[in-house]
């Protein structure tokens, strides 16, 4: 075994170590990938660093690669004709420890250790702590990086302070970029255009295959240029099937230093996510339509180790902690089916809703509040957005003068609904709810009795894929057979896995994308070229 341990030590010396002996010569088990001889390939183009994906993670990786070495040719390639990934249409709020905004409101006792604790409370042990620490420690650096590259922060948040305490966070530390993800993407694109001559952004380039040589090093990719993604498929994942979408012309790109996969999640891929979790086939998603399984499949085919694939994160149009004030009912029976507090476990509530919907031909379940519940809402701003019908699809909250009017609107039997509301009120008065919802968390809203009434069709959206390619703290992809980093391969952002776990704490996707984007870009540029 001495050959194995010396090889492992070799790799641990870090990037840029001399070329390792071919896998076969060391007598190790067969590789997880089909090796490519670079001499067999007619390369159409070459670059030092190739970043796949133009969202926040990809753009930050590209910028850091280009800044790390001004002589490096950096190309960002995105399969879509619309750049920016899911970042473009996200709010991109972020948890930052030690920002000036936080200091201005007198918070001096926040720390990365406290943020780590908050994250791990949600991760419930699924995460790899060495990865989570990278994210927890890098928030201030990321905040300043974004500022230095043109991003401004929204000072209208938190009553003019620019910082807010979101659910699950122990301190007020969450900040919002002015104009959300759209602004972040625009600023980063603009920075590349005006300040970095060595970054080129290309769209409609589909990654088909990742090529590794017989030493396991990533040497290049097979792509299709002028690819046309089609939003007309019921399952957007069909776009990754060449039989259903054969657009584009095959080209081979030689990637001399590093490939950075910043390809986001697979949330829009019905079959791929449905294979992991049955009820998820029919879930909604408001991530970008291009979030399909093609990239993770290409990584798996190339021997990258996938983990956490069954984990997912739901998002509701309203804060999870505000669901508790109401009751969730099956519109056909008027009956409740879950504890609406559920320890703020949005996964459990989301799964219960999807499962209940399966029994009623996919009809929506209804969340009902009374006036007391509405007054207890944490996020009044979001509540009013919903009342105005401006909170996206399934985000609208309707107001009714009576329970009858409410029942009518959702085609419910008024008597059945009333009977169930009465049962809820009676049980809750004794703190004996049939679903064990604790009276203590409801404060003054422990009954549904005071008009006017409010209702919405609460439906979970699958908006974050914890699953992806496992990485090292240096953002290196890990080989599924050897367990070792893959030379020349990096993954960052939602495409990677291990930083988070059972649930991802809110305002933390950005810090994963950003901190690992920085690490991946720098390390890719520093990798010694193979050609």
């Amino acid at each position: 075994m001495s050959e194995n341990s010396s090889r492992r030590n070799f790799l641990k010396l870090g990037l840029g170590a001399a070329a390792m002996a071919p896998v076969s010569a060391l007598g190790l088990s067969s590789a997880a990938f089909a090796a490519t001889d670079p001499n067999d390939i007619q390369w159409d183009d070459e670059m030092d660093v190739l970043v796949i994906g133009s969202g926040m993670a990809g753009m930050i990786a590209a910028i850091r690669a280009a800044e790390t070495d001004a002589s490096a040719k950096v190309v960002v390639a995105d399969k879509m004709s619309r750049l920016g990934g899911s970042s473009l249409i996200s709010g991109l709020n972020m948890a930052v420890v030690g920002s000036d905004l936080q200091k201005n409101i007198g918070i001096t006792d926040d720390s990365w250790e406290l943020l780590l604790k908050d994250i791990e409370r949600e991760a419930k042990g699924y995460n790899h702590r060495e990865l989570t620490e990278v994210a927890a420690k890098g928030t201030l650096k990321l905040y300043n990086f974004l500022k230095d590259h043109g991003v401004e922060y929204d000072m209208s948040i938190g009553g003019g302070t620019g910082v807010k305490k979101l659910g699950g966070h122990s301190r007020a530390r969450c900040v919002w970029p002015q104009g959300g993800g759209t602004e972040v993407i625009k600023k980063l694109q603009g920075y590349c255009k005006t300040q970095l001559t060595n970054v080129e952004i290309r769209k409609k380039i589909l990654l088909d295959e990742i090529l590794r040589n017989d030493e396991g090093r990533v040497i290049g990719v097979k792509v299709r240029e002028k690819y046309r993604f089609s939003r007309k498929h019921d399952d957007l994942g069909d776009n990754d099937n060449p039989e259903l979408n054969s657009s584009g012309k095959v080209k081979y790109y030689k990637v001399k230093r590093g490939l950075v996969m910043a390809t986001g999640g697979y949330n829009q891929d019905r079959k791929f996510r449905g294979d992991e979790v049955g009820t998820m086939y029919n879930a909604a998603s408001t991530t970008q339509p291009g979030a399909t399984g093609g990239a993770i499949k290409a990584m798996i085919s190339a021997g990258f180790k996938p983990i956490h694939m069954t984990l997912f994160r739901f998002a509701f149009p309203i804060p999870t902690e505000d669901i508790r004030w109401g009751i969730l009912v099956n519109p056909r029976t008027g009956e409740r089916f879950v504890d609406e507090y559920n320890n703020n476990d949005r996964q459990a509530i989301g799964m219960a809703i999807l499962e209940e919907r399966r029994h009623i031909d996919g009809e929506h379940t209804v969340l009902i509040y009374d006036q007391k519940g509405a007054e207890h809402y944490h996020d009044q701003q979001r509540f009013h957005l919903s009342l105005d019908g401006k909170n996206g699809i399934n985000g609208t909250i309707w107001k009714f003068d009576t329970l009858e009017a409410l029942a009518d609107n959702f085609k419910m039997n008024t008597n059945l609904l009333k009977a169930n509301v009465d049962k809820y009120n009676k049980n809750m008065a004794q703190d004996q709810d049939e679903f064990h919802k604790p009276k203590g968390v409801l404060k003054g809203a422990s009954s549904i009795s005071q008009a006017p009434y409010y209702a919405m069709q609460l439906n979970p959206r699958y908006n974050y894929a914890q699953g992806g390619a496992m990485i090292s703290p240096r953002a290196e992809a890990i080989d599924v057979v050897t367990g070792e980093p893959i030379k020349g391969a990096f993954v960052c952002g939602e495409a990677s896995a291990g930083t988070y776990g059972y649930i991802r704490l809110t305002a933390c996707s950005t810090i994963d994308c950003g901190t690992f984007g920085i690490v991946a870009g720098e390390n890719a540029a520093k990798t010694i070229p193979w050609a």
Partner: protein
Amino acid sequence: MLTLLLTVTASWVYADAEPDWKSLADEYTLKPHHQKLKFDCVMCHQGNDPEEFEPLESENCLSCHGSAKKVADRLQFMDPNHTNPHNSFHDGLSLDCYECHAEHEPSTNLCADCHTTTSWMGKVP
């Protein structure tokens, strides 16, 4: 005024049989606004061989429609709310025409993927 893509090639250049343009036009129908102008396939598609025709790029559309800014200005009244599909909050002037518009199939509405647009948008031409 309109400038047309020049693609008319004399048929004697190609030794093979002339493509059945009539059947192609029946299968690949035009939207009413282009139908009115009595366009032939070759008005937009390069070359004289339908097998080689490729989907249009935005600059092809803009050879008649001018520029992204000109197209956006037609719906200027929607700018105050950033709801102008050709100059939206998320994309400004940078969307490709074919994100929404198709010629031989029904068009789609990118905004409607996430937003409820029924009160402020009609059918996408």
